[in-house]
């Protein structure tokens, strides 16, 4: 291991903005993208239910 202390680790030999700027943005993207996909999936399910309810409503009207 090349780090004497935590401060040394975070300093990255003076390259902290570049190293952490890279890793932070990568981490952010890889965390946000799955959340966006999950929201899209939930939206799709919600829309499905709307379509279903509309179809059921039409059936009931037809029965009346």
């Amino acid at each position: 291991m090349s780090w004497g202390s935590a401060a040394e680790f975070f300093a990255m030999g003076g390259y902290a903005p570049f190293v952490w700027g890279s890793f932070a943005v990568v981490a952010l993207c890889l965390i946000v993208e799955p959340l966006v996909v999950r929201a899209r999936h939930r939206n799709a399910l919600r829309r499905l239910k709307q379509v279903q309810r509309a179809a059921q409503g039409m059936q009931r009207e037809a029965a009346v």
Partner: protein
Amino acid sequence: MTERSINWFRFSSPQTFYPLAGKMVPWFAAAAAILAAIGLYVGFFVAPTDFQQGEAYRIIFVHVPASWMSMFIYLVMAGWAAVGLALNSRLSGMMASALAPTGAMFAFLSLWTGALWGRPTWGTYWVWDARLTSELVLFFLYLGFMALQAAIDDPRRADKAGAVLALVGVVNIPIIYFSVKWWNTLHQGASVSLARAPTMATIMFTGMIVMVLAFWMYSIAVSLARVRAIILERERHAAWAQALAGAAA
């Protein structure tokens, strides 16, 4: 043909693929998380400081995987697009659409991390050299693919138009890959090649490969999850999708 042979075309129906993909997503996501943890540990705590670049070199542990995935995902996307054009299978177009945003994200991350690596190492965030420019073109190809698909209302026609764009853009991939050989670029030549041993320390190479595998597993997990959403969006009037929503209610 024996009776045991699997009918692979069965899985090309969105209805059968939807639950299958749902079962696969957690496994690939778990593999991605475990590999990323190992890769980051090796990258930050096992791999030594580079004697030329100091600690800035550690950016390659995300830069190289992001760059490779941006190119590889494009090839897979174009492959699905070609299958869709040839066989007219619905799922192929959905797979291509599901891969594009992830590919675009990796192309962006490749450019972003490359800029932050280039500044301390080359003294500049950006140069219009062949490698960097062709990667930027790749990013725009992804954006163009998504914009084109979004602009066409009929999904089957959007698939066809997108497929043509994706296939034409494939020409850019060898240009990116060989740019450091064909032109005199500021970007360094390949450190990893099938023809010879990698020109980097074994432990650095190991950390990088583990990160590549992590990004690979991530890409599979997130695009399978996205294709599930796309299947539901496009099949919302199908009876099986209606039954599924009823069961989930």
